[in-house]
């Protein structure tokens, strides 16, 4: 028998921080709040992920990248990655670092609050101006909207807020 050097969940999380959303490559799946649970059994690793939007074509790529990243750990045994629907992913799972990384990509992070009528507001991802208009609530990917900043005259995107109260 080899002397077993068990894989710790901390080591797995370190690796998962290197797995990025393929369509927003400045943000890790950990900071997007997609990692629900990491468990280890000896050198076997199981990662449970939460899908953001159900029809998102990046999900399978994220699953594969997660699997490959964890397999890179030295002495790792069986690796399993699965998506579950409970708890539901909501945009308030994105970390503060995730918010900063989204801005770096030119995407305003999802607002934490909704107005009473269900509408929401974000500031410009580039200049921070509040003087913006919603161009299209639907954007280039399922999770993003398109806005225009009247101050710096840039088109920018925002991550849609999603919440169980909707």
């Amino acid at each position: 028998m080899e002397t077993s050097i068990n894989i710790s969940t901390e080591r797995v999380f370190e690796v998962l921080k290197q797995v990025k959303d393929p369509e927003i490559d400045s943000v890790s799946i950990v900071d997007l709040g997609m990692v629900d649970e990491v468990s280890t059994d000896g050198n076997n690793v199981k990662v449970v992920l939460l899908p953001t939007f159900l029809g998102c074509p990046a999900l399978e790529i994220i699953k594969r990248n997660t699997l490959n990243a964890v397999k890179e750990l030295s002495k790792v045994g069986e690796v399993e990655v699965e998506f579950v629907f409970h708890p539901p992913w909501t945009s308030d799972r994105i970390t503060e670092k995730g918010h900063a990384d989204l801005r770096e990509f030119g995407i305003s992070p999802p607002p934490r609050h909704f107005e009473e009528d269900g509408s929401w507001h974000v500031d410009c991802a580039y200049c921070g101006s509040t003087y913006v208009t919603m161009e299209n609530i639907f954007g280039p990917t399922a999770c993003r909207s398109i806005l225009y900043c009247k101050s710096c005259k840039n088109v920018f995107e925002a991550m849609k807020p999603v919440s169980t109260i909707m």
Partner: protein
Amino acid sequence: MSNPENVMSADYKEALTSLLFQLADDDLMYAFRGSEWLGLAPHIEEDVASSSISQDSMGHAAMYYQLLEELGAGNADDLAHSRPSSERRNSILTERVNGEGVYMETPLYDWAYAVVRSYFYTQAKKVKVESLCKSSYTPLAEVAIKVKMELYYHRLHWETWFKQLMGSTDVARKKMTDAMTLVMTDFGDMFSFGTKKQLIESNRLIEPEEVLLQNWKMSLEPVFTGLQMTVPAVPVPKKNGRNGEHTKDLDQALRTLSEVYMVDPIAVW
């Protein structure tokens, strides 16, 4: 978690499977007809929006087929692509063509019809999904909670279109009213569970047909009152998609949708 098949009675499983096919087939067809607007929508923002909605809806169908796969009903891709129209359980409304002509040739589609169909369908879906959040089958309730969050944006989108076109010119209102007549002709089986009514309702998978229909009417009333209109009556179905009765439009849709799959079922996307 234990395998659901082990603890499920045959009755319950039949009810669940029947309902899941209705939900999955509805979203598959709705998403397919929506995707036929790609490149044809009235303006570029709408092209992005409606294709995004279609993509989400296809994702919802995929989740329901996934639940069916987990219940041993077959492979999810196969269930979506390979079943003949007589085995499909979608409502008649979702299978209808977008208008005259053919997508790849001369599509003469009707945007008013697209708006009314999408708005009425999305509102019906919202009512069902809210009920499914309390379903006796937990995996279905969990999926429903996810769907509901995405549906929020779909409903908002179609309601905006509906109100704006209804409050626009006489021509717009006439086209919308005509579209509404057309949509309602096919709306009879929207809340029907077909011959599985008793089975589905008694197993508390979703609320009864009558409750869903009533909730749909009530949810539309504020918008219709604002437009000085009344919510149209839902007719008795002439054909019931929930029992596998369909129009030739469904065959056309399945031929197009499954063309690649039939040529190469193991193609990787």
